């Protein structure tokens, strides 16, 4: 079955940085570990580790781009460290399904929250709300540089979400 089990092996390599590092050092050994038949092993051993790594980086880069688009304020808060933090997160989390990009963004914001890293609470609330089955939501949320409270109102109408945020007091929203 040349090529079929190979697809499964490739997926493991593309999603596992440590396995890729070992592949770069000893390709036949990793092919054996993955239990590939000789035809598949021959194809795997013929793969350029640098190209494999480039493909893996491209996959994470596309996810990073989508998350930055969905949560731009959080991305801005992370600054130059964002890329590295996202890479660490992305190597362990693989969202599924056709709404994977917002799920990815939400999981990333949870990841930041769990580690005490900065994220924008309004963005988190917005993504949570849009992924939920709710039709409306009102919450008090702290956001911006001064973490001042605001009232978030979201409601679903005519097939789309509308939102308002009323900030209490001064500060950058």
């Amino acid at each position, binding site marked *: *079955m040349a090529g*079929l089990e190979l697809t499964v092996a490739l997926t493991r390599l593309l999603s596992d940085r440590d396995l890729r590092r070992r592949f770069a050092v000893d390709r036949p050994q990793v092919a054996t570990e993955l239990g590939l038949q000789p035809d598949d092993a021959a194809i795997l051993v013929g793969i350029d580790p640098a190209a494999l790594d480039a493909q893996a980086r491209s996959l994470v880069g596309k*996810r990073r781009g989508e998350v930055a688009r969905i949560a731009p304020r959080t991305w801005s808060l992370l600054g130059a460290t964002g890329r590295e933090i996202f890479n660490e997160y992305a190597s362990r989390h693989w969202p599924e399904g*056709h*709404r994977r990009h917002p799920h990815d963004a939400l999981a990333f914001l949870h990841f930041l929250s769990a580690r005490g890293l900065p994220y924008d609470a309004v963005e988190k609330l917005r993504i949570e709300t849009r992924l939920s089955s709710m039709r409306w939501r009102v919450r008090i949320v702290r956001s911006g540089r001064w973490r001042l409270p605001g009232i978030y109102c979201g409601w679903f109408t005519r097939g789309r979400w509308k939102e308002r945020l009323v900030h209490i007091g001064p500060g950058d929203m």
Partner: protein
Amino acid sequence: MRRGLIGLGHRPSLASWLASGVSGVDCVELTAEHFFDAPDQAISRIGDQYVCSVHGLGLSLGTPGPLDAVALRNYARVARLSNARWVSEHVAFTRTTDVDLGHLNPVAPTRDNLTLLTDHVQQVQEATTRPVRLENITTPLRLPGSFSEPEFLNALCELPNVGLLLDVTNLFINARTHGFDAEDWLAALQPGIVCQMHIVGYGEEHGRLVDDHRLPIQPALLDLMAVAAERHDVEAVFVERDLDIPGPPELAGELSRVRQALGWA
């Protein structure tokens, strides 16, 4: 050479403009997954206005085992509601049972993968009852196998009602990345198998070309597209911008440049 249709990838930010009925946009390509949660009416309204093609990102035709039944059902629903003239997917895999990688990855050009993809394409045809167009992807990863990429695509397109959706930008990027001649690659395709084309400007990152769908179409891409169109009977060309999507005048200008380059003006 016949004159085909010229259209755009449908994007949320273009929805109201397209809904106003744009002359010069002959057809639109709906990304199937973007419409999985859309109400029936929203999809059929687009189909009433434009010739549609439904384009999949996540059927993962190259994944061993059966296709995801839910994804296929949703995909077929979008095709039915939009009254799509064609449906399309990539010659790629995006997931296995272990992990959903979420984006396109190459399949090894082997005989077993040819059989697998053929079975999956037939399932898509049965589910949608529409001609299927298969798209070449761009990737830094080249997998060895028993076929060259054009041979593999030729073999897949031997199926009835299956043709190639040639992504001109992907071909251009792959040629630069892997150091082959894009026109030689085109010459290795069976005459007539290219039915549709995708085109968008390429980006550049750390000295490598990337398909970020962010920039206007570069002249070299228009030239390559014209070469392909001379050898094949192309039914539709789609401009597929995803990022930094310009305003209507600029997009109309892009479509006009494509039309002129193809001699379809």
